């Protein structure tokens, strides 16, 4: 990618585009392989962890249960309340899927967060969009739900001129877009940042004598940022799932 002789080319969005492993198929790229790998890893891990469902859990079962309980209780029960149980599998899938794909960003040899390809977070955000609207429509009916969004009760009539478009935008555009963009942008920026310091450190190492001494600092910052990235990756998976739970809770709530 970056040839030492030709001066340093800073990493760009081009670094997020992968050629197919073989041939021309757009389905044989690294991000797609990582997505399927994550599905395999999560499925196998939780399948094995949950298989026995023992009262006294093994370490593996306990680990799996802890993640599950974290989503189930912390995001499902505590936020959605009463009717949370049927949304738990969705939230759980969302959380583990995003989490593992994000963490792939700092796993040696994989080292790419698939969520930095906008298509993936967008699909997830659209799924959330469908789920929370469907939950609301199923509970309240389409008309009353739309009315509840457009005409928030207990507000002077003339305010609706401003409020109604804003609310419609919030529910139908802002929510899915911000969900997708937040996750995408965090992963994109994080990966770019790591590339800058690690590729930069590598470039310095191959440069003039004087610059070689600066190289370790670049690598050190790159390593520090890797830890920071881990935090961001976990946090973003959590936030995405948390917001989804909040939207579902809002959709099921009786009044504003």
């Amino acid at each position, binding site marked *: 990618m970056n040839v030492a002789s030709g001066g340093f080319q800073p990493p760009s969005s081009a670094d997020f585009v992968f050629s197919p492993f073989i041939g021309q198929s757009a389905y044989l790229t690294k991000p*797609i392989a990582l997505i399927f790998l994550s599905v395999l890893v*999560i499925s196998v891990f*939780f399948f094995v962890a*949950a298989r026995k469902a023992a009262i006294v859990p093994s370490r593996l079962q306990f680990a799996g249960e802890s993640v599950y309980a974290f989503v189930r209780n912390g995001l499902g029960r505590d936020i959605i309340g009463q009717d949370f149980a049927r949304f738990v599998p969705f939230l759980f899938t969302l959380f583990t899927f995003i989490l593992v794909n994000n963490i792939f960003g700092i796993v040696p040899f994989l080292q790419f967060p698939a969520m930095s390809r906008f298509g993936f977070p967008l699909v997830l955000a659209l799924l959330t969009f469908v789920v929370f609207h469907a939950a609301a429509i199923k509970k309240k009916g389409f008309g009353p739900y739309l009315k509840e969004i457009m005409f928030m009760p207990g507000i002077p009539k003339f305010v609706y001129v401003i409020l109604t478009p804003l609310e419609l935008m919030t529910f139908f555009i802002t929510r899915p877009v911000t969900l997708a963009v937040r996750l995408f942008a965090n992963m994109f920026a994080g990966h770019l940042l790591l590339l800058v310091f690690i590729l930069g450190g590598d470039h310095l190492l191959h440069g003039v004598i004087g610059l070689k001494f600066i190289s370790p600092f670049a690598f050190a910052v790159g390593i520090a940022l890797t830890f920071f990235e881990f935090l961001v990756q976990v946090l973003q998976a959590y936030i995405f799932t948390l917001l989804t739970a909040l939207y579902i809770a809002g959709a099921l709530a009786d009044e504003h």
Partner: protein
Amino acid sequence: MTYVLLAAESGKNPLIPAIPEMVVGLIAFALLFFVLRKYVTPMFEKAFADRTAAIQGGLEKAEKAQAEAAEALKTYRAQLSEARGEASRLREDAREQGAAIIEEMRAQAQAESTRIVAAAHNQIEAERQQALTSLRREVGSMATELASKIVGEALDDQARQSRVVDRFLTDLEASK
């Protein structure tokens, strides 16, 4: 549409989603959702439910045992106090009986002594009477004998003799 074009386009603007990735994302998510929902979440829920049941069962068992122990303790306490009452009642009875026996004995002894004293009195009286009678007879006969000796006249005659004695005694009494 070739891959190269698409890649170039999304390479320029990372916010343009690649359609294949959206398709794959959807399929992958659906696949994962299916697996987790079918094989994982029900098992974890089952484990949680079993655990809750086990803990609740244990608690209930402990509560039952405790209740049983409390019940047994109550029974024992009741029995103990009953036994204590019984013992004190027995003691009381014994004391009362003892007192009654002593009282009875005292009464008996009293009666006995009274009886003995009375018998002694009677005997003394009888003996005195007897002594008086025999004395009177002997004094009479001695006096008659003496008088007959003195008077020289035999007072053999019974009637006379008795008259003389009576007179004598009357004199005696009169002189007293």
